[in-house]
């Protein structure tokens, strides 16, 4: 089942204005750089983007924000992006901020056919407004609904032609569960390999969740906070 497409342009075919997209990554770590560039290129707008963060002003989803392609963001933390904050506070941008664990679990649920589940996160806060509350084991919980997307766009380290994916380090983050929750899931990888080259015992995302895959190019992999210590001599 060969799912290889030529490049980001081919991978993003069918993405239209007004659609809901999920994009993997935590900050700038593990984001689908090639597809984001293609979305800018393609100039689709009115997008609803589900992504833990919104990039920084000049990289990641910040590139789409600069061009006002995003109508609504569903995220947990957006503190690294001034343009985001400006658009949100001015009301240009709709924002649904949700707890990070609920975001992860809601994407997982969307991919796993679980329409809703109870979680303690957010009870008694703005997040709980309008949501069903139920007590379990003496503790209040909110009913949270699954999230799905027209397209999920993820970035992996290696992938094979069947769509099996392997991530590297903390670039894994939201990618695996978003891969599960897309009606169509696009995976861009640093290295595309033949089926059988990845150990079947150590696949992070089974190919069944991926519909299109391609080897991306020119990964910048920008570091947001370069923190180092000096070698003692």
């Amino acid at each position: 089942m060969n799912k290889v497409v030529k490049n980001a342009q081919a991978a993003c075919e069918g993405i239209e204005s007004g659609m809901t997209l999920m994009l993997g990554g935590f900050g700038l770590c593990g984001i689908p750089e090639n597809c984001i560039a293609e979305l800018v290129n393609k100039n689709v707008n009115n997008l609803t983007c589900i992504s833990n963060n919104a990039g920084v002003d000049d990289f990641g989803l910040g590139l789409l924000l600069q061009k006002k392609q995003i109508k609504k963001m569903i995220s947990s933390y957006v503190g690294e992006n001034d343009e985001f904050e400006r658009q949100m506070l001015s009301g240009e941008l709709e924002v649904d901020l949700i707890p990070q664990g609920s975001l992860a679990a809601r994407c997982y649920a969307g991919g796993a056919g679980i329409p809703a589940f109870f979680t303690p996160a957010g009870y008694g806060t703005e997040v709980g407004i309008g949501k069903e509350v139920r007590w379990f084991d003496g503790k209040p919980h909110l009913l949270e609904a699954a999230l799905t997307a027209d397209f999920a766009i993820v970035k992996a380290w290696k992938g094979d032609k069947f769509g099996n994916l392997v991530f590297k380090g903390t670039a894994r983050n939201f990618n695996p569960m978003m891969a599960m929750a897309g009606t169509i899931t696009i995976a861009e990888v640093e290295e595309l390999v033949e089926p059988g080259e990845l150990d079947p015992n150590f696949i992070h995302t089974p190919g069944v969740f991926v519909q299109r895959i391609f080897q991306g190019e020119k990964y910048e992999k920008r570091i947001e906070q370069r923190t180092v210590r000096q070698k003692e001599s």
Partner: protein
Amino acid sequence: MLTKQQIAQRIAQELESGWYVNLGIGIPTLIANYVPEGIDVTFQSENGILGMGPFPFDGDEDADLINAGKQTITAMPGACIFDSATSFAMIRGKHIQLTVLGAMEVSDQGDIANWKIPGKMVKGMGGAMDLVASADNIIVAMMHTNKRGKSKLLKQCSLPLTGVRCVKKIVTNLAVLDVVDGGFKLLEKAPGVTVEDVQNATEGRLIVEGEVPDIKI
């Protein structure tokens, strides 16, 4: 008065061997530098690593290995990487023994606010709401008052809440306090600080019983 480093140092005294610990951004991150000799704890970062080590040596940094504050980090031997769903399964499922995080306000019932100033600042809650809703042991590390000198230990939080009735302990530049039935119980005060100083800086109900010892670091 304690410095931020000393706040971290004091909280580090609370660590127990065998604990898995999640440290928030800011002062909490500093705690990793002060783990007492002989205490064996493992640090979790909610973006997907258990066994977080110190910052990498200059030149060794890896864009694919960061903590929840987006800082480059290293992994200790025996570390383990996982996805965000698994990370919060650990947190929600109470497999993490201690969470330390910063706050803008804490109420004397243990409510906490740290993610939003309506109309002014909206960074988002990140993983904080999951952490405070699930952890049995939550310590807040913060300054006792804000930049305008107003108390951050309140009768009631004025900012949007992150969680309700969840904070167990607070360590500030002025004091160590437990949140108990009835208010903030003063356990220790910073060297050179009087009980009255703490009282003046605390808007919420402060409970003082007997002699209050100095914080030892």
